[in-house]
């Protein structure tokens, strides 16, 4: 008996090893890589229209594709690696559950990368549209969010032979190009943090469908002449309603102040003997801080101090100059004034549309804790009229591998 019972137990145990109770083969899954959410009209009421871009794992797994298609390229002929589906509903979830009638796949949200909101949904207030994504167990708070001018669904429906999936293309832009020029990647946690403060305005990058600058003949024939691009930033009010857009220049100013600049290039004019030439500089590091004090009129006064270092990337001209230190000093001053201009433009714009995108209110809260309660209630009235001074300090670190442009004459050396 002492041996029989353990023996029986061991014989029963393998039954548990099947382990396929809730199994889900990868070919049964529809991997959502991007979601677009729009506001829709549902029998006179406002509802949600959701468009999902879904990866087809069968096509993407090279081995299976080769076996089935026989071509060895990894793509089954006639099958597309990404497809889209669109549904409407009262809530995002109800729209998604409606898709079950039409697709034979289990939608899996774990690989979702980008959520794009339509202009209309954003203007009506994004808060209701955010809940499902934060609540969901499969979706993550480090999803990127973006706003599209016009219908968000159009972005995902755009066919893009080169990148296959527009959502993944956008994801790559956000991952690699965050902090380049006016591109700011905003993830859900970031957006929600700003919403939570109640005074700072959330931001989201703007995505647009624009014409490709160059298309292959085949693409032109197929009518595939458009692509997606990031064009500026959308500023929301603290309640999550889209107010207005920042253009590229204003976005760039914003990034300096937010300390999010990673790889910024700017082109500044350079006068050599009365001829206007241009020099491109690339930022190597930049740091910005805000000081708050109380002005004479009792309102807070802000002082934005930005420091940046640059490399010379290109001198587009034939005159001498970069070997001369005084020319370099001039460049530094020009770069600083251009930075000031950009930041000023951003400040002006944000005050004009009354969105505290810099987090100035939070800065008051942190630096002037005692005085903050008196501004707290009226911050939205105060913000457009506060005084902001900007100071920029720039340095040029190196000029890469050339001192002067090739062929520039030595005559001007004595300057």
């Amino acid at each position: 008996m002492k041996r029989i019972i353990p023996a029986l137990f061991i014989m029963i145990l393998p039954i548990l090893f099947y382990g396929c109770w809730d199994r889900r083969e990868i070919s049964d899954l529809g991997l959502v890589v991007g979601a677009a959410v729009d506001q829709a009209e549902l029998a006179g009421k406002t509802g949600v229209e959701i468009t999902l871009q879904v990866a087809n794992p069968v096509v993407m797994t090279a081995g299976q594709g080769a076996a089935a298609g026989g071509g060895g390229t990894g793509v089954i002929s006639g099958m597309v690696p990404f497809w889209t589906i669109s549904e409407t509903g009262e809530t995002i979830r109800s729209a998604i559950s409606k898709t079950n009638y039409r697709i034979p796949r289990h939608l899996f949200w774990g690989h979702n990368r980008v959520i794009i909101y339509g202009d209309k949904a954003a203007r009506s207030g994004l808060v209701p549209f955010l809940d499902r994504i934060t609540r969901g167990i499969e979706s993550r708070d480090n999803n990127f969010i973006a706003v599209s001018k016009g219908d968000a669904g159009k972005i995902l429906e755009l066919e893009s032979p080169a990148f296959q999936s527009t959502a993944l293309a956008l994801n790559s832009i956000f991952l690699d190009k965050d902090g380049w020029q006016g591109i700011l990647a905003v993830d859900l946690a970031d957006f929600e943090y700003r919403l939570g403060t109640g005074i700072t305005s959330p931001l989201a990058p703007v995505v647009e469908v624009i014409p490709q600058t160059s298309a292959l003949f085949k693409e032109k024939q197929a009518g595939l002449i458009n692509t997606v691009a990031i064009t500026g930033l959308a500023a929301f009010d603290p309640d999550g309603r889209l107010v207005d857009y920042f253009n590229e220049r204003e976005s760039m100013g914003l990034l300096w102040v937010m300390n999010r600049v990673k790889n910024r290039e700017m082109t500044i004019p350079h006068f050599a003997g009365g001829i206007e030439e241009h020099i491109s500089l690339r930022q190597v590091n930049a740091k910005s801080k805000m000081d708050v004090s109380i002005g004479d009129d009792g309102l807070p006064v802000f002082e934005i101090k930005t420091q940046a270092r640059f490399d010379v990337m290109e001198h587009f001209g034939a005159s001498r100059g970069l070997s001369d230190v005084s020319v370099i000093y001039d460049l530094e001053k020009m770069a600083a004034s251009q930075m000031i201009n950009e930041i000023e433009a951003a400040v002006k714009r944000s005050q004009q549309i009354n969105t505290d995108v810099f987090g100035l209110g939070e800065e008051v809260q942190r630096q002037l804790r005692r005085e903050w309660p008196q501004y707290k209630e009226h911050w939205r009235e105060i913000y457009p009229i506060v005084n902001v001074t900007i100071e920029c300090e720039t340095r040029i670190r190196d000029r890469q591998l050339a001192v002067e442009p090739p062929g520039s004459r030595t005559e001007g050396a004595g300057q």
Partner: protein
Amino acid sequence: MEPGKISERQLAFLMVTVLITTAIFWAPQLACRAVEQDAWITAHMASVWGILSVLVIIALARRYPGLTLIEYLPLILGKPLGKIFGALYIFWFLSQGAVIILQFAYFLNITLMPNTPTAVFMVTVIALCFYALRSGLEVWARVNEILLFIAVLTIVAVIVLPFDNMDFSRLLPLADHSPGQLIYTSTNSASWRGEVIIAGMFIPALASFRHTPRNLIISVVLVGFIVAAVEISAVAVFGGVLTGQKEFPFFSLARMISIARIFDRLEVLIVITLLLGTFFKICAFLYCSTLGAAQVFGFKDYQFLLLPLSVLMLALANNFFRGIPDMTDFLTHVFPGTALFSAELVIPLFLYLIAIFRPLKQVKES
């Protein structure tokens, strides 16, 4: 009654496991909901309450050496009242255990296996605890000694790894809430820290007692630091308001980890911590209730009570809450009352005060 002996280190390790386990999952949400970015301050304030509990239980243990909390209750309060309080303590141990089981089961239900019936998790974990307790206190205390490192290591990993997303200026302004508000919120976190009172059931099983007061205080403070670190990390990543809006800030924190796109999706780490920690925590409370029950009713052995009491704990767990909203509500409003302000601090404190005024000799005679 307890034949096994544990070392002082084992007790300290066991206390760290008990104090840290469910607290890091629930305290950040509750604390951030109340005081936002100042949550970490309340975690340290809770340590003060915890140290008070330690001092009281140590003072009692010094006065009645070799006896457990349940055993000296009748000596202090007189026999009938002492037994009634003993029975209440047993119920408290059981209900605490039931809440812990539920916290474990609900967590797995929400995060990993939504389609599995909650009962499956509850039965599995209690069966495991039953098995462990059958092997005796020495055994599981030693296992805990080995496994605590893994749990603490994973916790530290989850705290540190989201460094990419952290912005520490979100912790400012510092101490923006009134001291009263902070103290009020700290009682919640302290209700977890005060669970150190169950050390009163383990002290007689110690091989030596010399360093135990110091050890327990260090455990409490250390746990305070870890909980505070979780809260600091969560607030730096999500901000105070958003942390309070998350069901499991610690879990959401782990989901934010993405280093160089290689270290991704590390929330499994959390489940390791949860599994290890909850197992020992339930073991500790189940042990306390069985040992206590045997002592209240004067049995010579406690092992035979294990089965009925673990079934009772399971039954309690099954009927305790209707769902997770109920539980969060309980933890916010009721928990400090049932824990810190009764079983964990106030009752032991009164016991000690009465014990001081009762001459020791007389008590021993009766």
